[in-house]
């Protein structure tokens, strides 16, 4: 595996993008996600109206992997229903675990976030990649009572 498959241009660009990196004063829910071992630390905010995620932003610090993943997540879920977002979480986590491998499906659903596919070969970085997704899952669980994805 080549390093550039992990630190791809998509990930590098998104890790530095400020597009979704700001506070959201009118958020309906905000959760902190933290990896104690490496210090990745994000606050993910969403604004949910009826069943629709109308906005998603974050602030935080961490490695390129965690920051790019969070940024991509915000872009992906904005405009999606909670149900669609939950499905995306399942697809993303399924990809990381190597359970969903079909590139067509992944690309279709996760768009640029397919860039994290190779992270499964680096067990010590998996937690960075999934941090935002688990945080979103927690928000959804609190809102809707849906059990969190394994």
């Amino acid at each position: 595996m080549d390093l550039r498959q992990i630190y791809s241009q998509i990930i590098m660009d998104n890790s530095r993008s400020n597009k979704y990196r700001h506070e959201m004063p009118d958020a309906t829910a905000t959760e902190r996600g933290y990896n104690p071992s490496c210090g990745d630390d994000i606050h993910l905010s969403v604004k949910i109206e009826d069943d629709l995620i109308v906005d998603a932003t974050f602030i935080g610090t961490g490695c390129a992997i965690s920051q790019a993943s969070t940024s991509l997540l915000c872009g992906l879920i904005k405009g999606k229903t909670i149900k669609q977002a939950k499905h995306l979480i399942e697809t993303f986590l399924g990809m990381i675990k190597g359970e969903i491998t079909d590139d067509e499906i992944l690309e279709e659903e996760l768009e640029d976030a397919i860039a994290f596919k190779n992270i499964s070969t680096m067990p010590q970085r998996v937690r960075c990649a999934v941090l935002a997704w688990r945080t979103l899952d927690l928000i959804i669980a609190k809102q809707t009572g849906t059990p969190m994805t394994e």
Partner: protein
Amino acid sequence: MKAILKMLANPGFDLERVRSDFAYLELDGPIIYLDNAATTQRPNQVIERMDNFYRFENGNPLRGAHRLGTAATEAMVKSRSKVAQFIGSKSEKEIIFTRNASEALNIVAYAWGLNNLKSGDQILITRMEHHSNFVNWQFVAQKTGAELAFIELTDDYQLDMQDYRNKISERTKIVAFSAASNVLGTIPDAAAIIRIAKEHNALTVVDAAQLAPHVQVNVQKMDCDFLAFSGHKMLGPLGIGVLYGKSEILQAMPPFLYGGEMIEYVEDHTSTFAQLPYKFEAGTQDVGGMVGLAAAIEYLEDIGLEKIAAYETALADYCVAKLEELPYIEIYHPKQGAKGPAIAFNVKNAHPHDVATILDYHGVAIRAGHHCTQPLHRYLGQNSTNRASFAFYNTKKEIDLFIEALEDVKNVMQIDI
């Protein structure tokens, strides 16, 4: 630099022979192991000593009415005297085997701290403490009402002795400090710290987890009251550590863990306890770990601690000089004073975990994170840092490869400095 290069070329011991004792160097895809402050590697001699114990000397120590029990007891007794001699303790009674330095520091917190501190007292620790010599004192402060105070650092990442003198008072009952920082490398003047503590009748606790592997410790010369270290940071196995305590003080403390071997008489509702050091060693002890630690000490002594310290210092100095040449690197390491071979640094605009991953890809093992020193990292203004830390089986060439690999970090992370 000339002296450094000379030392690196001629460490005064047979570096190649030493390296042949370490199996990890035979792994496919060579590993440049620069994470020695987290845990060292173990030479074959240590592993073989443990094997031999488990194969031919294995019984329950102290309980043995048969030859294997006797063999295990002897293995325990000999290991303890090896440790006592190594740190210059007066007596084996002062050597308590623990799981690790953390447990040793908890014993002091629980069995001394909870029983001797009260509201109005002060516990003085330092800004650079490892969580293992920090959170235990928070706990004691919360339970007893004693105040927890911190000795701060100078701009050169050294312990601020003036701040220490300002903060210590008759209220200070205990001064607990790291004798070598696991992040900065800083080696404060333990003797001076202890002398000043004594002037105020405060006890002293030395966290020697990062000192014992590199510099010859002598508890009698230091005159500390407690000292803790871990075997796994000095070639020994995991799961074994040491608490040294002055015997008068240990004697006056109640036991900590209760169970087999640490008792004398057990009645239904009261018990009396065994003599030192057994009073603090409840249940069946890890003799395998003890013989491993003793073998590790013998290995270090065979090379000679002075030679080890000199060579490791040269490695660290060389590495610092090389890092300083790189404009995209920020170093957290004192310029003056004594230092151990641990160097914290950051690559500007790159998160330490990304740095570590890329270096790992190049076979260079360093550590990234807060290194169990969140309060120090808050002081540094960094969420986390990278750390390279050396042992005497590292080489100049390994450092050169490390520095080269940093260049690729710069490329991969698209750093433009």
